[in-house]
């Protein structure tokens, strides 16, 4: 057993050396209680979570639909009077995992704009930020630095990975200030609130159900995925596998592309050389346009396709009139943590787990969202939720 673990650890270390830049939990970290619970062959599938997320899609969230970043699905409101702080001008400290992809960049701009509003109203004084550049160790020391500084009134954390960052988040909680975690989760509920959209299963299921509904039985579907081993992405595929498994669609393959447009175009072109592809399922919209162009260049009819609410895909969708859906991993969630922190410091109630709505963009809403985002660059996310902030549209346009 011991030698086995040693071997696993050295394989993991070697893998880390080889996989330059890809940040995931090291395999040696993964066998914790949560993942071993799902022994049924697929370590990324937890039936209870899957059922919960699929059900949450149909629950009407509490709050005003015009401000979805303040809505919550089945919230369990908790008292925060113990954290109430007089006088405003709070110092917020934000440990960010990275801004290494357009989705995070878009959200990060939105968060900064929201902070400006709260600074003007006097609720936030200083907003201190550290960016870990997708490095777990860096983020652990970033969080420790906030704790050591001792003058953060609240610590906001967007964890880089789940298991590795758990002790750091626990340490932040132990320092006594209210902690807000958002986007990816950690294995502790010590944070005052954990903010996230419904989740990866819902995303993958939205996309897969759309393909099942819009393709004839027996049609072929190619799945394009970014990279293996990242929980939010693996959950999307795990959900799709469930739904495809119960359908009569033929899944030609699931390919990792790294989100690289050239790689996506190569792979799709090669599948098209071998036969018809009727549908494309993607676990994230990066490079979706390259996949569509592969059909154009091969002289094939457009597939039924699911991408994401990234504008380059949505614009191409409108231009071609293809049958498509844009599943959403709600980018507006980046507004919520700073608002939540000011609520907590004002002693207002917040949901202990703040589940934000996550509705895909359908063909009926396509025109509306494109119009709203007309000035935005192509690698921008339609549901960024910052249209009412004073910096709009310049802050997002001139990034």
């Amino acid at each position, binding site marked *: 057993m011991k030698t086995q673990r040693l071997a696993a650890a050295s394989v993991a270390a070697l893998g880390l050396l080889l996989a330059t830049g890809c940040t995931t939990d090291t395999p040696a970290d993964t066998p914790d209680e949560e993942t071993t619970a799902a022994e049924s062959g697929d370590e990324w599938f937890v039936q209870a979570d899957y059922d919960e997320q699929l059900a949450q899609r149909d629950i009407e969230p509490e709050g005003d639909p015009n401000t979805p970043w303040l809505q919550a699905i089945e919230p369990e409101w908790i008292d925060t009077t113990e954290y109430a702080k007089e006088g405003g001008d709070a110092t917020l400290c934000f440990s960010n995992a990275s801004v*290494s992809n357009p989705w995070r960049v878009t959200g990060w701009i939105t968060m900064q704009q929201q902070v400006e509003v709260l600074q003007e109203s006097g609720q936030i004084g200083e907003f201190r930020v550290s960016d870990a550049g997708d490095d777990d160790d860096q983020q652990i020391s970033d969080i420790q630095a906030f704790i050591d500084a001792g003058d953060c009134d609240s610590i906001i954390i967007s964890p880089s990975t789940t298991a590795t960052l758990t002790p750091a988040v626990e340490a932040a909680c132990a320092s006594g200030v209210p902690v807000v975690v958002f986007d990816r989760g950690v294995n502790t509920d010590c944070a005052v609130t954990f903010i996230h959209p419904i989740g990866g299963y819902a995303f993958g299921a939205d996309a897969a159900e759309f393909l099942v509904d819009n393709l004839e039985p027996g049609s072929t579907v190619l799945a394009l995925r970014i990279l*293996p081993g990242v929980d939010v992405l693996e959950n999307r595929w795990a959900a799709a596998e469930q739904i495809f498994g119960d359908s009569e669609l033929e899944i030609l393959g699931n390919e990792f592309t790294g*989100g690289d*447009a050239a790689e996506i175009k190569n792979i799709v072109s090669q599948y098209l050389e*071998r036969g018809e592809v009727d549908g494309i399922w993607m676990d994230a919209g990066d490079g979706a346009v390259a996949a569509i162009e592969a059909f154009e260049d091969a002289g094939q009819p457009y597939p039924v396709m699911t991408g994401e609410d990234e504008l380059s895909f949505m614009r191409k969708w409108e231009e071609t009139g293809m049958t498509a859906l844009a599943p959403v991993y709600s980018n507006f969630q980046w507004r919520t943590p700073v608002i939540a922190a000011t609520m907590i410091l004002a002693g207002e109630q917040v949901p202990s787990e703040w589940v934000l709505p996550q509705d895909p963009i359908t063909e009926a809403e396509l025109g509306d969202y494109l119009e709203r985002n007309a000035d935005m660059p192509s690698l921008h996310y339609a549901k960024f939720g910052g249209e009412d902030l004073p910096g709009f549209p310049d802050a997002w346009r001139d990034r």
Partner: protein
Amino acid sequence: MTRFRDLIAKAANPTGTVFILLALILVGVFAMNPGFFEGPSLMAFLKQAAPLVILAAGQYFVIVSGNFDLSVGALVGAQVVIAARLIDGEESRTLPVILAMIAFGVAVGLVNGLITTVLKVQSFITTLGMLLVLYGAIRLWTGGAPTGSLSEAFRQAGRFGIEDVPVLGQVPWALLIMIGLGAGAIALMRSRFGRVLMASGDNERAAALSGARVDAARTAAFVLSGLSATVAGILIGGYAGVSAQVGDGLEFTVITAVVLGGVVLGGGRGTVLAAMAGALTIEALFTLFNQMALPATLRPTVQGAILIAAVAYAARQRARPAPAPATPTATATATPS
């Protein structure tokens, strides 16, 4: 009969290994999917392989002169992002921006070359530094996500070609550019410059003592590599458009390709044709993996094993005293000037 013996001798030649490997992989692809060798799909393969082949030629110049260029992947990415931002969908800006990209590629190569030769910083460090500088600068400049878009004219070279050619379908511009530049690279290696470059990698002191301008040749090699990355950037950007990940990890793929072509790290041995064939081999291997539906997680492992096996095989051939002059290029000497 003698032709057959020639063939055997060629196969035993270390730089010949790559051609055998390429043939084997293509046989494998054919077995999986005979349709691969039909005109249109073959053309599509070559179109998509062209950028790596051109990059391999550029990297060959640097490696054969005894250096590395790790900055090419970042440079390709930078060029595509710069192009998208500066063109921003305006057709009329295509040509000026392409000229600016060429100037930028030359400048990056020149800086790499001068830091390596004048300041005597090892090229591994110089170009690793350049990789990081470019990577960071582009992210700083774009705020992490590329903006703008490429013009239709810009995308011509990488995406389109001469249409409606009998049998072949579309003859991609990328293929013609690849053949043109490949021929240029071969001609360059046969010129005086090529011999100086080879001698610099083989034995720097001897080359310098015999009057060759080693530093100038090495710097020029970096400039050629920067230019190849620029052309590759134009083709890749044209082929698939802008994404934040363009060029990621390309430096390792291209060094793998060159090494697979039997070019010795440290310099002085190998031919540019074999380096380019190495790139084709890598691309064919990716195609084969795809045809076999090999799990993505297994691919790097298989790729690594094939690389080690091929280079070990070539090294064994080289170590054994060859009956015929094994590598004519290896015996090249610098001509005194």
